[in-house]
């Protein structure tokens, strides 16, 4: 049997599983908890294959020393990658223990059963536990593919809505986040960022800050400026004084935020044809055209990036919320000009992470400060303002659609043109470090241009550009842009968010132009039974039927996609009420993620994904003037609030015989499109440039 890729890269079984003390099992994975509940889902898989109680599993936080290197926790791939590897590794560990027990008892394997870590021989009363056998089994050996994981009909834990392991501590207010570390001798650090991306220092005077209470070090390296103090409020106060002790030379080099779609389309680009089938030269009569866009979007986690670092005797130890501890270590080492082995990173949770945010940057910031106070751990936390204005943004993008239907009510032509820069700017992937402070120190490293695909992976900006619908005549083109003058990186659902928004809005626009039912038009062009099933499930639960009675203020719309055309299927129906503002009053989401490890965990992820996508679609837009980012507070970057969030009804279509698929990003694009389609249904107007703010909806009404 061939091993799952992640296990093939990390074959030693003791990298994954160790017999812990007192009847516990320590399980390691290279994936990290970023708020999505993945660690609990992986514990559930481990408990299943090892045949032990869920409560016995202790999930050990990842570090760069012992944990399997599984790259980055991103792209909704953790369940399939790490889950697949862990499943096989645990099946092998279970077999190793069974063989050890068989030897001790002089039994055949088929006489033995395992229950909660106790191996029993059916015929006699003999039994042995994993813990009694720990010295008999050498887990330093490599996985060999001899054991088979359980068949779907043998599963007892997978598929159950088990509670998350990490939630009780969070609800009790325990110190589980990197923000909460309190190491002996720890000092507090703050960084003073330039006011704009390319600002240069004109004058700088550290004397005032240096004289402030508690200040241990003022750091200036190029245009990287920071302070270390004994107490946190002292570091905050000193940073505020320091910020006033520097003057900057700035350039007005940003584009006009109001005309980003036109700006992107006018940039020089390279054209990549993704699909060209049939005949696009004779579009039928009644061609429909529409251009959709999204602005730059912020991660806007409620908690700022934070990290703790200690420099001692030539080695550097970092505690970080990074999604990519191994690659980040590489870039930190490259920045400092030291060997990667001299840097150790321990993963500690942060506040919610929805892509490449400031976590890795904070790790380097902490290291740069810690080097100035050798031996002392330095806890470095960003301000909320820096979190909103300096973290990488999900890039602005544009999609232009063109299409036509024929007399038989089928789509006769489909053209999808995308404008996007490379989305991926994570550490460890490019020639130059991809960490903010590396570009600010003297001499600075060049900010690398970004890449659009991981080695062997699919381009991020092109996700879902190819429709899942069967069109005879279609053309899909990516106008590849270089880097943008705004810092960008991956954000939840990457390119799929706008590609899906555009496709799913356009399906409705075509249906409307030909007086067809939008759901029916979709079904007519789908042959994938799982796609059809989620659409029908969402439609039926929500009551989205042709000819339903309308009351003049409410509207309903649907959006569908299979994320990345290979992960989970999601169909979302939104119902809106249009009064003075647009309120989303109900959302139904139907998802198929193959075998659902934990159906409640899936529902939780989908609910969160829907609400966040609503926020993207209706409220969010990074603001800037020609010089500076202007979105620096919750006032200037509003997100969806408590009273605006509807109940989300999630239907999980379980497919126990199908591989588990990631679900975190599946609902994003469909949700945005469902809302836009519902607004059209209610008001007869369409807002194609996100966000669909009340002002924009009103402007669209006036254009009628």
């Amino acid at each position, binding site marked *: 049997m061939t091993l799952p890729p992640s296990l093939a890269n990390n074959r030693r079984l003791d990298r994954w599983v160790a017999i812990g003390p007192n009847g516990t099992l320590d399980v390691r994975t290279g994936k990290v908890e970023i708020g999505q509940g993945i660690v609990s889902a992986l514990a559930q898989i481990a408990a299943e294959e090892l045949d032990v109680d869920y409560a016995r599993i202790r999930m050990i936080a990842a570090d760069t020393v012992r944990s399997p290197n599984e790259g980055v926790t991103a792209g909704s791939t953790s369940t399939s990658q790490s889950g697949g590897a862990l499943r096989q590794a645990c099946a092998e560990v279970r077999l190793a223990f069974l063989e050890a027990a068989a030897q001790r008892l002089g039994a055949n394997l088929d006489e033995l059963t395992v229950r909660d870590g106790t191996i029993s021989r059916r015929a006699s009363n003999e039994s042995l536990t994993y813990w009694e056998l720990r010295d008999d089994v050498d887990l330093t050996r490599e996985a060999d593919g001899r054991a088979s994981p359980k068949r779907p009909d043998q599963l007892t834990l997978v598929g159950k809505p088990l*509670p998350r392991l990490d*939630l009780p501590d969070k609800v009790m*207010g*325990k110190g589980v986040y990197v923000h909460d570390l309190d190491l002996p001798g720890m000092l507090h650090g703050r960084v003073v960022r330039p006011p704009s991306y390319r600002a240069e220092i004109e004058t700088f005077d550290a004397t005032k800050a240096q004289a402030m209470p508690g200040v241990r070090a003022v750091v200036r390296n190029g245009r990287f400026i920071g302070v270390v103090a004994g107490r946190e409020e002292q570091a905050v106060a000193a940073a505020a004084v320091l910020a006033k002790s520097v003057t900057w030379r700035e350039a007005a080099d940003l584009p006009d935020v109001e005309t980003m779609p036109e700006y992107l389309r006018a940039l020089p680009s390279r054209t990549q044809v993704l699909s060209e089938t049939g005949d696009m030269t004779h579009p039928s009569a009644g061609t429909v055209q529409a251009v959709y866009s999204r602005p730059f979007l912020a991660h806007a986690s409620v*908690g700022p990036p934070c990290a703790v670092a200690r420099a001692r005797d030539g080695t550097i130890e970092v505690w970080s919320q990074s999604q990519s501890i191994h690659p980040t270590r590489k870039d930190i080492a490259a920045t400092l000009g030291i060997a990667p082995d001299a840097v150790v990173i321990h993963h500690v949770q942060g*506040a*919610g992470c929805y892509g490449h945010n400031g976590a890795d940057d904070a790790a380097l910031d902490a290291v740069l400060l810690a080097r100035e106070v050798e031996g002392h751990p330095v806890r470095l936390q960003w301000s909320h303002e820096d979190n909103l204005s300096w973290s990488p943004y999900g890039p602005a993008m544009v999609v232009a659609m063109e299409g036509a239907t024929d007399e038989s009510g089928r789509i006769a032509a489909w053209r999808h043109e995308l404008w996007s820069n490379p989305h991926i700017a994570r550490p460890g992937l490019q020639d130059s470090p991809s960490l903010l402070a590396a570009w600010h120190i003297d001499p600075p490293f060049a900010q690398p241009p970004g890449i659009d695909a991981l080695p062997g992976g699919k381009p991020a900006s092109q996700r879902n550009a190819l429709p899942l619908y069967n069109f005879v005549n279609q053309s899909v083109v990516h106008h590849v842009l270089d880097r943008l003058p705004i810092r960008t990186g991956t954000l939840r659902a990457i390119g799929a968010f706008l590609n899906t928004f555009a496709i799913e809005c356009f399906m409705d626009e075509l249906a409307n132009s030909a007086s067809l039912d939008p759901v029916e038009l979709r079904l007519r062009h789908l042959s994938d039974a799982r796609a059809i099933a989620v659409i029908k499930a969402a439609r039926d639960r929500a009551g989205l039927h042709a000819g339903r009675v309308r009351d003049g203020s409410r509207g309903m719309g649907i959006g569908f996609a299979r994320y990345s055309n290979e992960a989970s299927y999601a169909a979302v129906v939104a119902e809106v009420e249009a009064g003075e503002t647009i309120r989303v009053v109900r959302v139904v989401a139907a998802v198929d993620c193959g075998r659902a490890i934990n159906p409640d965990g899936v529902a939780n992820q989908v609910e969160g994904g829907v609400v966040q996508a609503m926020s993207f679609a209706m409220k969010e837009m990074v603001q800037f003037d020609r010089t500076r980012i202007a979105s620096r*507070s919750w006032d200037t970057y509003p*997100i969806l609030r408590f*009273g605006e969030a509807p109940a989300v009804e999630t239907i999980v279509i379980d497919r126990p015989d199908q591989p588990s698929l990631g679900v975190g990003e599946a609902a994003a694009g469909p949700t945005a499109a469902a809302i836009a389609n519902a607004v059209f249904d209610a008001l007869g107007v369409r807002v194609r440039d996100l966000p669909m703010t009340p002002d924009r909806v009103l402007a669209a009404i006036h254009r009628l």
Partner: protein
Amino acid sequence: MSKSIGLTVNGMLHEVAATSDTPLIYVLRNDLNLKGNRFGCGEGVCGCCTVLLDGHAVQSCSTPLAAAEGKTVTTIEGIGSDAAPHPLQQAFIEEQAGQCGYCLPGFIMGAVALLQRNPAPSDAEIATELDLHLCRCGAYDRIRRAIRRASQQMAETRERMA
């Protein structure tokens, strides 16, 4: 300059040596090791750092230490324990309300204050009262359900006691 200031936190009297303008959040987190009090915005507008001051919900990031002098502060650590969680904490676990969990202590403290004033709030009242609180992970609906569940459980308990 910095004299020591006395305040009662979770029923214990503490003397802290910090300047009187120090935001309460740093004293609670760093001097008293009460880390459940999460730092979000530092500007009083996200709710992550919510604690009770003489029973009223306040944002500890924008409450100077002087304002707490001689008063009673209650934090998430003071309302329940692993063995005996507060009904709200229990309800949040039962509803599996939360993803990253960073916002939860703030929501729970806001809800403690709300249920003290209004033991049976409607959904709309819950949303209005806790409008300050942001959850970027989008767990609002489960949070609302958890608060409702706790309110019902607390009512049942009161009935049993009566």
